[in-house]
């Protein structure tokens, strides 16, 4: 999988988190999976159509999600992932998606990106089979975010 398809989804997240003061984001792992499987409690999934077809999923633990929403709200403590906090994660995903979409078009990759669906739950197992997936672990000040990029290329 060409790096030019992967970087916009990582940089998109980095750019947006930085806007909320979360600096010093590091890549802590990058590996290839035969299929996309995620077992974290909060996952935002976006679909990609056009020149590329596939899905990108951003997954994190509930604690990481709470920390991110707290940063988005100028440090206000977030005790639980209630409706407000959930919509915060939704907003964040929209921003990341929008940013990634701009970065892709700057690289002359013409795709449409669907708005995110966000899945909350416990013991979640999320799977996209038969698509080669690149998984990137990002260390952020809010906690770890796992980015899974599964594209049919």
């Amino acid at each position, binding site marked *: 999988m060409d790096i030019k398809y992967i970087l916009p989804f990582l940089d998109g997240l980095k750019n947006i988190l930085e806007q909320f003061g979360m600096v010093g984001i590091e890549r802590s792992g990058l590996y290839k999976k035969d*299929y*996309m499987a995620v077992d974290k409690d909060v*996952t935002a*999934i976006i*679909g*990609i*159509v*056009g020149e590329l*077809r*596939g*899905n990108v999923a951003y997954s994190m633990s509930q604690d990481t999600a709470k920390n991110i929403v707290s940063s988005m709200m100028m440090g206000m403590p977030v005790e639980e992932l209630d409706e407000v906090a*959930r*919509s915060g*994660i*939704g907003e964040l995903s*929209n921003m990341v998606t929008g940013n990634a979409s701009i970065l892709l078009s700057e690289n002359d990759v013409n795709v*449409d990106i*669907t*708005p*995110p*669906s*966000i*899945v*909350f*739950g*416990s*013991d*979640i*197992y*999320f*799977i*996209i*089979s*038969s*698509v080669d997936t690149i998984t990137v672990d990002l260390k952020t000040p809010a906690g770890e975010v796992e980015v899974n990029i*599964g594209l*049919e290329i």
Partner: protein
Amino acid sequence: MDMVSVDMKKLNGLLNRAVIDVITTMTGFDVEDDPDCSQFAEFESVETIIGVMAVFGSIDAVVALATDINSSKLIVAYMTGIMPTDLTDEDVHDGMAELVNMLVGRVKADLVREGLDLSITSPFSISGTNIEMVFKDRENRICRRFIAGDVEMFLSVAKI
């Protein structure tokens, strides 16, 4: 040129018919539908599996087919001819994703033939307990219940 368009109501109608056709064909179940979706809430406490796919273009929407784990095993067992006890988690996930793929693919083909511009994303599936899916547009969501013997399924279509 005639304007071709699709709204949520039409998309939902086509999908409902596709659910019945696809599941009946693939499993041999006798599927009935029910507009009352209120039981969906009870689903939150049991382990659920959802096959999901998005359509994009003339209309942007997410299509989700949800059922409890035991029902999903039964559905995939009938699809494949493999005993429910011999099915792996991956089989069940694949089976639910493929069902959604078939029903959305069929509806897309119908709409494209009418002149609409539609793309479909790759299907995926999610399992877990207390699953909740949140979309950008909270209001525009249509749900329908399907029953085949002890198997209960919910199709939810949400505008994104």
